[in-house]
Structures are given as structure tokens and as C-alpha cells.
């Protein structure tokens, strides 16, 4: 059973890689751009999944970390002419520090209280951006004139070039997050989600792991912000509002909280379906709302809830044999 799941997953990823690699051959610029959007949202949803899906912390202000990353890149690029991809680590660090700072006093709050507080934090960040905080964020108009990224001397500007850049980042992220999931660190987050009292009582420093989940999730959202800023060359506060956080939350829940392939599927569906049914664009959010309600009754674990078992039958047998 577990072995078959792993094989199916490997086949799924291989098909996805082949599809993305060949996409410029049969998709026009518009649809390539949709795929780029999918990639960015997959990254954001996976980063939120660390916090919400793996650690079970209801974070509905994730767009704030995305914003911190995007603005870090924008400021470094426009004021100090630092090449875009060099700002990736800076975005990660700034977003992680910011997350640690704001999450520290509230992270112990019970489920839905944390949800409301993170909504509040997200709004405060947006209001701060609109109010041109520190004179750095450009107010409601945002920041424009962000430079294009350069990879090995090649300037990335057209959709298919961004396609490879963004999806390479997605591939690395998926690989790393699978490793994370199957480690002591990933298990600690799961213990926290399942029962924080039992986790602490088993010797897990729950306060620390709550913060680490926020820091790591925020770091990845921050780096996604860098890619977004590079792709758009202009960013403004309205891209990082409350609904952005809601949509990310929806992707994780819809696809399968805690399941990497599930979250990828969730993000893909939420971005692509409205594009397919463009005639109903105005009813998009209406349908999302309905889907959220129906899902919770019919399939609360999400569409693709399976997770890879960290220990397979064979591992256990091998562990037993080594005694």
C-alpha cells in the first residue's frame, strides 16, 4: 500500500515535470502566464501548509509574509540596485525574522483565536504598507521599476523564461519539503498539530516548534514574494490583502491539509478553474464559498489527503532485524 502510493506519486511528479517542460511548445503566452501564477501559488500554499497543515496553526495572515518578501526585494532592487536573485536570501531572512517577532506573543493562542489574530496582523501590515511606513513602501501606489532577474547572464523577462525559473524553484521546494516532512522536524510539527499537550509531555519544545513553523513558512512565502516582485516589476499593497490570505487558506484546506501533492492540486485548481470558466468570473468567489461549505461536510480531509507514510512496513522490519 505505502509502496504503491510512493510509486504513484513519483509518476505524478514525473508527468508534471514533463508537462511544465514542454508547455511552451503548445501553450500561448497567456496560458504560460497562468502556469506561472499556478507556480507562485503552489509555493505560497506549500509554505502555508507548513504552518497550517503540518503544525495545525490557523494562520490567516500569510499574505503578510509574502508582502514582506516582495517589498524587501522591491526596496533592495530599486534603492540599492541589488540583483533580484541576490535578494532571495534577504527576503527569506527578513520574512522569517518578521514572522518570529510578530508570532512570538500570540502563537500559543488557541485555534480560532490565533486565526483572528493573524487576520489582524495581516491587516495591520497592509495598512502599514498603504501608509508608506518608514517612507519606504511607496504608499497605496506601491513600488515600481523593479529590475528583471538574470540567470547566468540571461535576462528573464518573457513568460516561458519565468516558467522555468518559477517551476525550478517549485521543484526544489517540493523535494525539500518532502524531506522535511519525513524527518524529526516534520514529525515534531505533526505532534504539535495532533495534540500540543501530549507533544510537550513527550518532550517536544512546542513553543519553539510553533515559532519555527512560522519562521520557515514565512521564509518561503518571502522568497515567493521575491519571484512575484521580479515577475511583476511593480507591487502594491492591494496584492497582499485579506482575500489573498483566504485564498491561500482555501488552497491548503481544499487540496488536503498536510499533504504536499494535495496542496499542489488545491493551488492548481483554485488558479486554473476560474480561468477555464471565465464567463463566470464574477461568480468565482461565490463558488469558492460554496465549495468550502460543502467540502467540510462531504470531504473535510481535502481532495488528496494521502500523505506518504514516513515508515514503510519494510523499514520497520529492517529496524526490528537490526536488534
Amino acid at each position, binding site marked *: 500500500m505505502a509502496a504503491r502510493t510512493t510509486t504513484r506519486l513519483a509518476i505524478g511528479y514525473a508527468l508534471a515535470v514533463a508537462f511544465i517542460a514542454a508547455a511552451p511548445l503548445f501553450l500561448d503566452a497567456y496560458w504560460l502566464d497562468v502556469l506561472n501564477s499556478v507556480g507562485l501559488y503552489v509555493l505560497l500554499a506549500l509554505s502555508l501548509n507548513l504552518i497550517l497543515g503540518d503544525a495545525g496553526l*490557523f494562520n490567516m495572515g500569510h499574505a503578510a509574509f509574502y508582502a514582506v518578501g516582495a517589498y524587501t526585494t522591491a526596496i533592495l532592487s530599486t534603492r540599492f540596485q541589488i540583483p533580484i536573485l541576490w535578494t532571495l536570501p534577504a527576503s527569506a531572512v527578513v520574512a522569517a525574522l518578521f514572522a518570529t517577532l510578530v508570532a512570538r*506573543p*500570540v502563537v500559543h*493562542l488557541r*485555534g*480560532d*483565536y490565533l*486565526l*483572528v*489574530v493573524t*487576520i*489582524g*496582523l495581516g*491587516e*495591520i501590515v497592509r*495598512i*502599514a504598507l*498603504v*501608509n508608506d511606513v518608514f517612507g519606504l513602501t511607496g504608499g497605496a501606489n506601491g513600488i515600481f521599476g523593479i529590475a528583471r532577474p538574470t540567470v547566468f547572464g540571461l535576462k528573464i523577462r518573457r513568460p516561458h523564461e519565468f516558467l522555468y525559473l518559477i517551476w525550478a524553484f517549485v521543484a526544489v521546494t517540493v523535494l525539500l519539503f518532502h524531506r522535511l516532512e519525513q524527518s524529526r522536524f516534520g514529525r515534531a510539527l505533526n505532534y504539535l498539530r495532533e495534540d500540543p*499537550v501530549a507533544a510537550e509531555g513527550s518532550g517536544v519544545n512546542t513553543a519553539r516548534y510553533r515559532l519555527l513553523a512560522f519562521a520557515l513558512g514565512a521564509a518561503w512565502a518571502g522568497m515567493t514574494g521575491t519571484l512575484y516582485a521580479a515577475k511583476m516589476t511593480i507591487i502594491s499593497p492591494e496584492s497582499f490583502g*485579506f482575500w489573498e490570505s*483566504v485564498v491561500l*487558506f482555501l488552497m491548503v*484546506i481544499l487540496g488536503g*491539509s498536510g499533504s504536499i501533492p494535495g496542496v499542489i492540486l488545491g493551488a492548481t485548481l483554485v488558479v486554473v478553474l476560474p480561468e477555464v470558466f471565465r464567463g463566470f468570473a*464574477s*461568480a468565482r*468567489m*461565490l463558488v*469558492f*464559498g*460554496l*465549495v*468550502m*461549505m460543502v*467540502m*467540510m*461536510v462531504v470531504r*473535510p480531509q481535502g481532495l488528496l489527503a494521502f500523505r506518504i507514510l514516513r515508515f514503510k512496513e519494510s523499514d520497520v522490519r529492517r529496524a526490528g532485524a537490526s536488534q
Partner: protein
Amino acid sequence: MEQFFQQLTNGLAVGSIYALIALGYTMVYGVLRLINFAHGDLFTYGAYLGMTLLTSFLLHDHLGLALGLVVLAVMVMGLVAVIGVILERAAYRPLRESPRLSAVVSALGASIFLQNALMLVYGARYQVYPDILPQTTVSLLGQQVPVMRIAVVLVSVTIMAALYLFVQKTKVGTAIRAAAIDQGAARLMGIDVNKVVTIVFVIGPALGGGAGLLVGLYYGQISFTMGWIYGMKAFTAAILGGIGNIPGAMVGGLLLGVVEALGAAYVSFAWKDAFAFLVLILILIVRPSGLLGERVAEKI
């Protein structure tokens, strides 16, 4: 002094609207331990239904201003209560035994659904209420205050006092309080918890819808997204007073309204919306049980 007094009364008016909405959050939370994220949208429905009824029936022309408004209020509150009961049946009742996250997600879904349904019907633009109210001011403690501002406070306080008496003095009120303390025990005492939940989803949305009507009449301009910001602030008010606590919601609402009005006037208007969130975060860090709530030790 003049500005302070104006801001204070203005804050009390806004705060009493927050308090009316907060009552819905607090009562639902008290009984179901659920944050009804769609409550802010029920408030918006009150505002829109009020506008439609006002313009299509012209009750104030037929019945006179005072009686017309009373009939209008009763109609709006009744309709929003119906929506509230349907909401509970559709989005919350099937999830009564599910994990908290499921109900939270369903509540958010309901909120998104209600909001966008409204947008599809009325369009995304601001809507304007017909101007039917007197713009006069009265002299209060030597200052000129708009009559409507006083009326908003008086109407809200009267409704809240009536609710408080209802919950404290009547049999149904006792059942609501009992279900809020311990559903299982309440059931054993012969209380029909489902009925209590339905009653709560009649009262809460009715008050929220009434608040929506007040906002429409008082400010004259409404939008389909306004429920979310009013809702968040009212929820803050409920937490501030101690969630589940009815007098707490009133105190919290008035306090938040005043803090926000004074903050906007004396600190920074641009950061006005951030004050409420800051209050929310601070209160949850410092005293999560709220000003009037009791601390409860977690059972292990």
C-alpha cells in the same frame, strides 16, 4: 474640548453599533464555541434589505417617519433572522460534531458566499440610502450634536437592555445561559439544545441586521464588503468584553468605538482601522478572557 466631545459622542454611536453586532458573535460563541465569520455579512444584508425595502415600499411616506421606521426595522430584523437560521442549518449544524477547523472553514465559506451573492445581485458599487432623516442638531452639555447620533445610541442601548433582561429573566434566556455553560448538562435538564441554537441564530442575526439598517440610515452609504471590517471590529469588541459575555459585548463595543474615534482624531486617521486590530491582539496577549470574562484553567 469641542473636538473631544464630538469625537466621544461619535465614538459612542459607532461603538453602540459594534456592540449590537458583537452580541451576535458572543451569543453564538457562548453556545456553540464557534466564531460565526458570516455574522458580519448578515449585518450587511440588514443594510441592503433595509435600503431595498425603504425604496420599494416607501413606508415612511405611508405610515409617517417614526412608525414607518419601526415597521421597516421589524421587517429587516425578521428577514435577516430567517437568513441566520438558514445559515445555521446549512453551514453549521452538519458540522456540530466535527473538529473546530471544519466549522471555521465552513463559516468562512458561508461568509464568502453571502458576500458574493450580494455583489451579484446589487453590483460591486457603493449603494446610497435615500435621505429621509432630519439633519438637525440638538444642544447637549453646551455642544451641538446631531440628533441621529443620539438616536443611534439610544436605540442600541434600548435593544441591548431588552436583550439583557430577556436573557436574565425569562425561561428561554435561562435555557440559553445553561446551554452556554454546559450543553450536556443542559440537555440532561430537559433543555432542547437545538432549539436554543436556533433562538440564538434568530436573535444574533436580527440584532446584526438591525445594526446594518442603522448604519445605512446614519451614514447613508453602504457596500457589500463592509460586513467584514464591521464584523472584525465587533468581534474585537466581543473579545474585549469577554467572549460569551453579553454585558461584556456592550461594554467592549462602546469602549472600542470611543478608542477608535479618539485614536483617529488624535493619533492618526490613516491608521484608524489598525487600532481595532491592535486592541484585539493586545487583549488576546494580555487577557484573553476579556475585561469581564473569567479565566479558566485548561483541563489536562
